[in-house]
């Protein structure tokens, strides 16, 4: 059992901090269907935390609970030592939780640059009048935030498509722009919803590299869901395994790999 306040050291020598977010006995129902049943786990400062499971295991629902899009009927969500009540999604974003989407939710009518700039909307405070006249705070803010966004653009190597409308980009680049938008918010927790879905091996390698770099460079805590076991095991520090809405395993990749329930869920088991 891990200590609540003390961290731990990873295999590659990184120091993981205390609990940043904690899910306590979460249950989520849609009508009569139970999507998540009594799940508890925590996410620690600076770690890469994965939630895996077969299709229909309730991973996406779990991510939506973390991001505040769904409100669980039972259980508590604790963030930075405070219990999070039911909040509007945009309020959750303002707490410092950013995410990407499985089916890419970029703003197709806007350029790559504008899309990434939307990640910083919550840091821009200039008033209506200042914006209307493009004078004072509005212009200063725009240029300061642009500078931050340019750093992320450099980091993710998308300089050459800055001004391209997002709708025209290929799938892999869209995923990267979405990551950039989430990073632009400088989140406390970055949620990635199947970041590798639909990618070929090369794109997966790129994406894995970016995820590791983000964690390394900015120290961002990352929670991701994914059903590609291989990638997840290489990337993450600790893994939660879900099946039919329940948690069947939790621990570092090696522990999870040895867990009999996990093996059964993934390889199938003869029911008698």
């Amino acid at each position, binding site marked *: 059992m891990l200590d609540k306040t003390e961290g731990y050291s990873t295999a590659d020598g990184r120091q993981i901090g205390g609990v940043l977010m904690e899910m306590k006995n979460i249950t989520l129902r849609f009508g009569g269907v139970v999507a998540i049943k009594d799940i508890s786990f925590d996410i620690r400062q600076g770690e890469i935390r994965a939630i895996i499971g077969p299709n229909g295991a309730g991973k996406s629902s779990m991510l939506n609970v973390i*991001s505040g*899009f769904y409100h669980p009927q039972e259980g508590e969500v604790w963030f930075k030592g405070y219990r999070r009540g039911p909040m*509007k*999604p*945009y309020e*959750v*974003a*303002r707490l410092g939780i*950013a*995410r990407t*989407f499985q089916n890419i*939710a*970029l*703003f*197709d*009518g*806007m350029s790559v640059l*504008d899309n990434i*700039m*939307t*990640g910083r*909307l*919550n840091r*821009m405070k*200039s008033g*209506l009048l200042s*914006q*209307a*006249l*493009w004078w004072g705070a*509005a*212009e200063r*803010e*725009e*240029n300061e935030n*642009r*500078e931050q966004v*340019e750093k992320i653009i450099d980091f993710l190597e998308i300089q050459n498509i800055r001004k391209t409308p997002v709708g025209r980009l290929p799938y892999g680049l869209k995923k990267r722009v979405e990551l950039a*938008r*989430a990073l632009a*918010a400088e989140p406390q927790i970055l949620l990635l919803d199947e970041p590798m879905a639909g990618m070929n091996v090369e794109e997966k390698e790129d994406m894995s590299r970016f995820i590791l770099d983000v964690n390394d460079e900015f120290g961002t805590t990352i929670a991701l869901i994914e059903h590609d076991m291989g990638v997840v095991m290489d990337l993450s520090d600790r893994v939660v395994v879900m099946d039919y809405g329940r948690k069947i395993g939790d621990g570092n990749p090696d522990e999870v790999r040895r867990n009999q329930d996990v093996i059964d869920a993934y390889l199938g088991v003869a029911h008698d």
Partner: protein
Amino acid sequence: MLYREAGDFKTTYRDDGQTFPIRLDRWGYYVTLAVAFGIIPFVINDYWASAVFVPFLIYAIAALGLNILTGYAGQVSLGTGGFMAVGAYAVYKLMTAFPDISIVIHILLAGGITAMVGVLFGLPSLRIKGFYLAVATLAAQFFLVWLFNKVPWFYNYSASGQITAPERTILGQAVTGPASTASAKYLICLVFVFALAWIARNLTRGTLGRKWMAIRDMDIAAEIIGVNPLTAKLSAFAVSSFFIGIAGALLFAVYLGAAEVGEAFGINKSFLVLFMVIIGGLGSIFGSFAGAAFMVMMPVFLKNVLVGSLGWPTDLAAHIELMIVGALIVMFLIVEPHGLARLWSLTKEKLRLWPFPH
């Protein structure tokens, strides 16, 4: 090397974010301004002012307003006529109640009042979307027109039920009423257009504009990245209605001089402005101007050809105009749903690469 960005390096983010990044565009803009402010006022006559320039400028403001709401924030409105009526009746009440205050202030206040009414009728947008919202805005259209028709206080109990603009002056020049000159009317509209277009450009390139576009492109995602839909949608309704209210105030006070609400601000006005925005290009400042110019000039052109040259009866010409407008709308939507603005930018794209397209 006519139309190039190569060699025109931007060294600051400020330069990179400017309105006309290409030098030739910038010159074109300055030349247009010089002609509009320096030449046209001195040569304009009554026909050109009342047939083309004044309605073009006023409708450009209305189109900018609707484009902010529909093109940038993605909320379709069919209540433009009703909101223009609010602007018109507000300016009328203010003009007659406080004759000593400058009409410029009255027009701005009329915009502000319309903004408030717009927010009120924008509230349902928080619950309903798409068609439902479009139809819901018709409630504003019908209710407002009915209100101005049925409550005599709004038209100062005049026997005809009409409102008539009294004479008001700016710097000694009459801009409303029968004594106003073509160039005075033109200039006051031009000043408002210039200022409002500049404001529209500023709002749409900054934080607020990005919030609007995020809501338009994918509202759920926008909310999850931290856009409050309440403030984003209502601010779009407010700003849009402010523009439309000013357009309504100018249309009544400067252009028409006298108005009856059902006739001047009926549902056809809502559609007219919507068409300007579609034909011009949703989500484009330039498109608002292009659409307004097109929809104002086409009837003038058709009338000159059909009635003037061919000698056909005016009612027949009006019906053919309806057919042509309808067919053009459909054609535009099929060929280029993004309107004249997109055609223009495609042309520019070609020009930039010319003569080596590969």
